[in-house]
């Protein structure tokens, strides 16, 4: 008898294929069904796919508007769920999934995948170890290049997506900020269409956030960066970290690196304002595998989920909603 997790993947776009590859590399999953509205897969109807394959787990890789229905239905059937972000189009969607989760017995994990990138893991290590002191503030920039058909993408159709660049990409940065700093509230938020003026969703989002004990985070999420860009600065009481670039499937966000240095007020490094910097670069992206392994361990071995929990989802969607709210 196989001990593999019988798994169906719902939504076979870029993310569905990426998850399929990751579960295949892991080896602990048995793919029992694939589904997409585009023909060419085992099913075109997600409910039929679930009912007929009766999987132990599903990977939900669909557009945002369908996510809550699938997640809630799967949990009702006692199926474990891995869902891509965002956790629905809005906070109401997330709360609906939270209700289903609370009444069911399934594992529910969301794909806040950036936590598993090597540079992010190293940053979290430095934060937790306090080797550079305590974190004081974080500033993050996450930018997209856009493309000719950008305004026509489903991601910019609010009925399907729920929001624009903030919900699509800025949400990752917000999740990391919460992970690094703790619970945040929005001090100031603004979303706007600075260039794509006829698009129904925002092309730019700005926010200043704060923890209860006074740590600050600032976010700039942009669809008008005109190139792919991921940068995060983390200021500590005794040092600094810069995260630059992110290894992705397209490799378009540049080399993934973490640079750190200690404050050097006594100029031990020889020049004021120019402390010795150390940089680690990574040429492999293990994030999909790490993330898959955590889901597997939670389902099969009963290990508690650390990342991408429903609490993480609720926390970050509360921030997203608050930023949108302040812009209305």
């Amino acid at each position, binding site marked *: 008898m196989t001990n593999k997790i019988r798994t169906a993947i719902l939504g076979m776009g870029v993310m569905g294929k990426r998850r399929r590859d990751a579960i295949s590399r892991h080896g602990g999953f048995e793919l029992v069904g694939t589904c997409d509205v585009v023909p060419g897969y085992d099913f075109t109807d997600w409910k039929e796919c679930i009912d007929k394959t009766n999987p132990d787990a599903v990977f939900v890789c669909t557009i945002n508007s369908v996510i809550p229905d699938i997640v809630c239905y799967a949990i009702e059937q006692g199926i474990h769920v891995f869902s891509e972000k965002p956790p629905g189009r809005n906070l109401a969607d997330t709360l609906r999934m939270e209700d289903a989760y609370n009444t069911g017995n399934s594992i529910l994990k969301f794909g806040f995948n950036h936590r598993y990138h090597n540079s992010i*893991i190293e940053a979290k290590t*430095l934060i937790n*170890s306090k*080797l550079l002191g305590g974190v004081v503030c974080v500033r993050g920039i996450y930018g997209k290049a856009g493309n000719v058909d950008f305004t026509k993408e489903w991601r910019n159709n609010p009925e399907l997506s729920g929001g624009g660049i903030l919900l699509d990409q800025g949400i990752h940065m917000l999740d990391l900020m919460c992970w690094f700093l703790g619970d945040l509230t929005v001090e100031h938020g603004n979303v706007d269409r600075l260039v794509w003026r006829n698009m129904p969703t925002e092309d730019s989002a700005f926010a200043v956030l704060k923890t209860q004990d006074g740590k600050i985070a600032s976010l700039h999420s942009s669809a008008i960066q005109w190139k792919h860009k991921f940068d995060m600065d983390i200021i500590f009481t005794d040092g600094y970290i810069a995260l630059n670039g992110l290894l992705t499937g397209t490799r378009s966000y540049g080399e993934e690196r973490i*640079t750190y240095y200690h404050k050097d007020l006594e100029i031990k490094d*020889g*020049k004021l304002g120019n402390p010795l910097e150390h*940089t680690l670069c990574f*040429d492999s992206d293990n994030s999909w595998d790490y993330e898959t392994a955590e889901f597997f361990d939670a389902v099969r071995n009963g290990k508690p989920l650390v990342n991408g929990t429903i609490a993480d989802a609720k926390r970050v969607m509360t921030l997203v909603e608050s930023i949108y709210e302040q812009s209305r």
Partner: protein
Amino acid sequence: MLKAYSFTENEGLSQRLNDKSFFSLERQLAAEFVRQHHISLSAAKNEKCPLCGSDETDLFTAIDTIPFFRCDRCWSIFAPAEQSIVDEYRAYTPITALRSSDEYQEIASVKRLKMWDELVFWFKFRSARYFGKSANFSILDIGNRYNVFREMIKSFSSEYTAVSDLVQANTEAEIVLFLTQIQYETNPIQAFEKIYSLIKPNGLLFLSARVGSGFDVLTLKGATDTIYPFEHTTLPSIKGLQISLEKTGFELLEITSPGNLDIRYVMENIEKLPDDNLFLKYLSKNSDESILTEFQRFIQKSNLSSHARLVARKKGDTV
């Protein structure tokens, strides 16, 4: 393995860490010892690579009449010396007396304090990464001859044991430090097997080494003034380290080459290079400090420096 490369942003080329007068004295004493322990080239043919086991090795150079071979497969470099001679060299009284003298220790501390600070940070950072904590380990420190550095390491350990060489090591620990020691091991596989037996399950090995695949070593060959018998008997390559550690049951977690002296070593010995080494001669004559620094950074980043460091884990149950 975590594929990472590490580099530092420097304003200019780093300075040598050795005190000139002490270094030249050490060098003289080593040469004096070598004169008494000649290895004839004819007796050293068909040497197998001590790291990867390949018998495809070529004579690389000779330093103070001692031949050094290079492995064609993994690019490690080694002298075909008996371990007993290397051990005798390490215990050679004129050298040990010099190195343990107060003046030597004091000057070494002044020159190396910043580097030791950085190394201690590296131990703590990587321990936090792989253990989830940055202090309170049992540490076995093999071959560390610097008193101040030993005290710095002791300060963040729960249990600290320092031994002069691998032969003396018999205490199990969560972390074993084997810094610039593999150069004294004629049989690195055997050395790694012993270290493996000294590390608790899931414990870590921190190793640093001069590597044979590094820029200054391969460029300068016999013109080097920093490699000499029997201070350096085995100069593993990056690949040789990887092969030998995996062969002995370690999981190699990361390997980087953050050395920052390759270009300085080459530039300081540029006149000794053959006249047809035109690129380096051109570089030396036409490049300012900033270009040379950038070149060194590229070497660091590309794992091409002759100073490497790594973290490996002993597979097994939890500590």
